[in-house]
């Protein structure tokens, strides 16, 4: 089947029900999305499907056909950071960093949908993802910074 990831078409030979996460990681070598639970609890695997955050451990490969898949690698790069990534760097959010790809993808999706979220909206949306290190206060602050920056632009 054909998958379009970060703007590039890939031909993959996998079962229809292989989770997109594992197609990305083990078939395409795109390792930004992480495995944490496999049951939509942690969100470390969060990617965008046509710009909307989705837990890639729950998306069948077959269902990702014909959809624009964006991973953290496609959001921005170390040389050209997305505004959300720049805010994550500015606030030094990450500790172990393992959940942060998913957190950033979730935040970017939130801000695309709701450019100036209230504190409660940020808490509600970001509570979909888990961080074991306890970086939530910095995630909160970084989402606000990113929102402000995106509003200016």
């Amino acid at each position, binding site marked *: 089947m054909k998958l379009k990831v970060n703007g590039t078409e890939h031909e993959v030979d*996998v*079962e229809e029900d*292989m*989770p997109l*996460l*594992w197609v990305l*990681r*083990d*078939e395409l*070598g795109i*390792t*930004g*999305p*992480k*495995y*944490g*639970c*496999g*049951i939509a*609890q*942690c969100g*470390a695997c969060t990617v965008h499907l046509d710009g909307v955050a989705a837990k890639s451990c729950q998306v069948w490969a077959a269902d990702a056909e014909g959809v624009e898949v964006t*991973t*953290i*690698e496609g959001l*921005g*790069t*170390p040389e050209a*950071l997305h505004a959300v*990534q720049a805010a*994550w*760097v500015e606030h*030094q*959010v*990450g*500790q*172990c*960093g*393992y*959940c*942060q*790809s998913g957190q*950033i993808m979730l935040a970017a999706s939130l801000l695309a949908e709701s450019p100036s979220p209230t504190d409660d909206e*940020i*808490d*509600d949306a*970001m*509570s979909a993802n*888990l*961080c*074991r*290190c*306890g*970086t*939530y*206060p*910095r*995630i*909160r602050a970084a989402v606000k910074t990113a929102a402000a920056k995106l509003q200016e632009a």
Partner: protein
Amino acid sequence: MGRLKTIARRTFLIGSAAVIGGVAFGVYTYRKPVKNPLEEGLAQGEAALTPYVKIDADGITLITPRAEVGQGAYMVQAALIAEELDVRLDQITADPGVPSAAYYNGTVAAEGFPLAATDDRLIARTGRGAADVAGKLLGLQLTGGSSTVPDAFEKLRVAGAVARATLLRAASEETGIPVDQLSTKDGAVVLPDGGTLAYTALATQAAGIETVQDVALKDPSEWRYIGKDMQRIDIVAKSTGTQEYGIDLQMDGMLHATVKCNPRMGGEMVSYDATEAETMSGVKRVVPITGGVGVLADNTWRAFQAAEAVTFEWGEAPYPSDDAAMWDQVAASFTADRQDSQFRDDGDVEAMEVAVEAEYRIPYLAHAPLEPMTATVLLDGGRLDIWTGTQIPRFMQVNAAKLAGLDAAQVHVHVLVSGGSFGRRLEDDYVLQAVELAMAEPGVPIKLTWSREEDMSHDFPRPLQMARARGAVSGGQVTGFDLGIAAPSVAASQLGRLGQPAMGPDVAIVAGAWDQPYTIPDYRVTGYRVPPMVPVSSWRSVGASGNGFLHEGFLDEVIHAAGADPLEERLRLCWHEPSRRVLEAVGEMSNWGEALPGGRGRGVAFTLSFGVPTAEVVEVTATDRGIRLDKVYVACEVGRVIDPVNFDNQVKGGVIWGLGHAMMSELTYSDGMAEQTNYDGYPGIRMYQTPEIEVRALETDALRGIGEPSVPPAAPALANAIFAATGQRIRELPLNKSVDFV
């Protein structure tokens, strides 16, 4: 023993020069390492200036041997070296190096001695010095016990200074200009005419000369990194998905593997049937290993699927099969023959008039770092390569060698960044499984990835604990406090798996309880050792993590029985100035004493752990949807803050870790198996439940680590706040067994 004592004394004197003499003055003689591991395999033109600094024409590598598990260890180690080497942090690469006795931890072993951090007597200091000797003799390369900063603070700055002095001499020899006319700046030697010679250009010259051994360290007023806000060296990678963790490793020809082992920890596999699994798509082989099987496949998910298709007959658990039976064991352990320690016994608690009596319980807890256990292993001829995140590279190297029938020198360990640990990667079980798989498939790199279910059902949890406590009051004051704590021994369980002896009492059973700086006329803390049950291990802040709740929860009860104010009475009981300061600080931060509206409550708790007195005040509101956490105030006396941003992040992370587990987490066992196998049954705290946290650091010249000390007071401060808001005293964790949270 005489010699050991002499070494202990001498090592102590050198080791504490930085503490006693004021950090920046005097000349430091570089202690010759056991053997510089960088000297092996140096290429032409590469200079190994101490075991921590490697320079060649292409760049500067700083060796940061303490594991990066999220706590910022690479950053702090690199900053300490860079401070004296005089390089910018964007000019260096941090590399964990190879396992070596040269990277021994001289501080962590001190946690195993029954020496209160507040004990400044010579005997206590000598004991801590002996920990340094023990660390050195054992070549104890280990990350843990909040020891990275205290262990590294002098060692790494001296290494940076030695490397810089040697580069200066090399530049002098190269140019004929005397050293005293040269200076350094940002990775280069500056000549009198303003010209520069990059360190990288001096590598060949520096490699050919003896390192300069006697160096002076900078005055703290000249520090450019220490104590200043720094940008973590890994923060861009960790914000762009480009940080490579163990689970991300990709190699040519690699097979993806998983394992499924007896969910009864340590139980055997009686039989298995992999007929169906072996026919599944992408599956190469199913291999029996110790206690279960491994599946080798071309994709991790396919390996997971196939592992689920294997059927097993599992052996019995080598411990009581369910929680009720285990609690019976714990409850039966408050006996003279199971008494493990009684490091505190002031006055006469037997004679006191008991006013309050209570029993407390805390459950098993999993570490459950978000990156599951993973390791990649390649066995090729007589060489074994291991790529993994670990806190114990040398123990692992030895154990892997033993398993593969090789010498340790034939085992090459490549330490990778870990997606969390919280103590989990102080074990090497997952690595040894990967070695077993590699032995079955030599010549092929095997990446083992545990499923979350395998991870949680094979965690070595924090032990369950019970306390039986009695308190006495008189004239509005706490006058008696008798705390008995029964728990299995983490030290015996964990060291046993590493093949190390665990002698004497296990301090962890009573850490954070016996060593608290309170003067109570009748005051006793007794540890009871519960026979081994589920194998247990170190969990962020170890013994203090649970004992903070037991001690401070019950102290709160006794204070209330006395009719005293929880903060005022703690201050009255506390004799230790730094501890008083943090209590006073949280009082001021939280406006303690100012009345809160109905339905709201404030709780305070204090624990001195890892040498860091930490006080926390939690504010909650009892709403009709349950308890809501409003605000947390934390003050700790941490010694020197090396990196203020990371300090803040670690303290908050520890508070959140402590609160979240206290609110909602427990690992229970049925039929010998953990009943919670993923984050649905073992939830973590989420953002909407996380209160605002205000942190204050009180600094001294002491050197402490901050990865753990904010954990222990969080649970009792929350429970005490719930009591203040509702009148309900909760003596069992998790708290959501007794109250709902919003």
